[in-house]
């Protein structure tokens, strides 16, 4: 994202790489994130504003047609919207939502959170070192997402493919999350 003073914002996990042959850990690229809360009667209008259908089924994520924007169900009236189009996302989602005119709360949490991509055949095994949920494909299929726990911190976990997870965590915890996953990756399928 362009800064008015020409200083590039550093990713909290700038330059970090982790994992091994069976699992890779990479910081996700910058993204616009919105914490969205709304009652059921506002969902269809807000979906129109975002250009995707907000999921209403627990534990599901929906991605838009060109794969740049996604909405993750976090609770019955709460979603996490992530937009990583255009190299870090410059979309003004708060405005897009405000233009719908329906009652809702949209808070920009782009820089509160960051994300780590966990990829590879041992991805689920690596996460299972600290996440108490059942991460088998049957219980946690592709496009399942959930707020949950990793070690000592809260995360939002999203399975984007069979062997690819996105771990959203608060930026001040990202160092812990990355170190935790690096250790777990060492133990998973060496």
């Amino acid at each position, binding site marked *: 994202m362009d800064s008015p003073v020409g200083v590039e914002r550093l990713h909290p996990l700038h330059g970090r790489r982790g994992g091994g042959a069976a699992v890779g850990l990479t910081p996700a690229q910058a993204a616009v994130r919105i914490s969205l809360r709304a009652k059921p009667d506002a969902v269809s209008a807000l979906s129109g504003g975002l250009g995707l259908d907000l999921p209403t089924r*627990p*534990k599901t994520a929906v991605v838009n047609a060109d794969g740049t924007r996604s909405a993750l169900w*976090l*609770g*019955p009236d*709460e979603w996490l919207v992530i937009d990583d189009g255009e190299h870090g996302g410059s979309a003004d989602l708060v405005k897009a939502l405000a233009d719908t005119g329906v009652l809702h709360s949209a808070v920009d949490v782009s820089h509160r959170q960051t994300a780590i991509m966990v990829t590879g055949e041992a991805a689920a095994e690596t996460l299972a070192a600290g996440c*108490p*949920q059942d991460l088998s494909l049957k219980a946690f299929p592709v496009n399942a997402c*959930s*707020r*949950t*726990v990793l070690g000592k911190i*809260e995360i939002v976990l999203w399975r984007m493919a069979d062997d690819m997870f996105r771990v959203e965590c608060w930026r001040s915890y990202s160092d812990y999350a990355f170190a935790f996953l690096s250790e777990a990756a060492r133990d998973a399928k060496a």
Partner: protein
Amino acid sequence: MLLIRCPYCDESRPEIEFRHAGEAHIVRSDKMADLTPDEFERYFFLRDNRKGDVYERWRHIHGCGRFLNAVRNTVTDRFLMTYKAGEPRPALPDPQAQAAATEGNGQ
């Protein structure tokens, strides 16, 4: 690990995603300003703390974030049932149904 069924997520989830939130079905008076100190003490501080099946509030804080109600046995730590906040206090399930319900949930 204990599994607790969240009625909002419609799934059994690990206990560490939840936080205990005290006794359930405590009704706040419509006329708080008129309560005597004794009545307020009863409402605010005094709890039954029963041994056996109790109605409790829990919060799925590291999940959907919602408060829910649960019936838990304080001796065995078994969750007999959970239901959404705001729903009326349900009758306790009969012991045979309890045994069947808790059989398969990993406790």
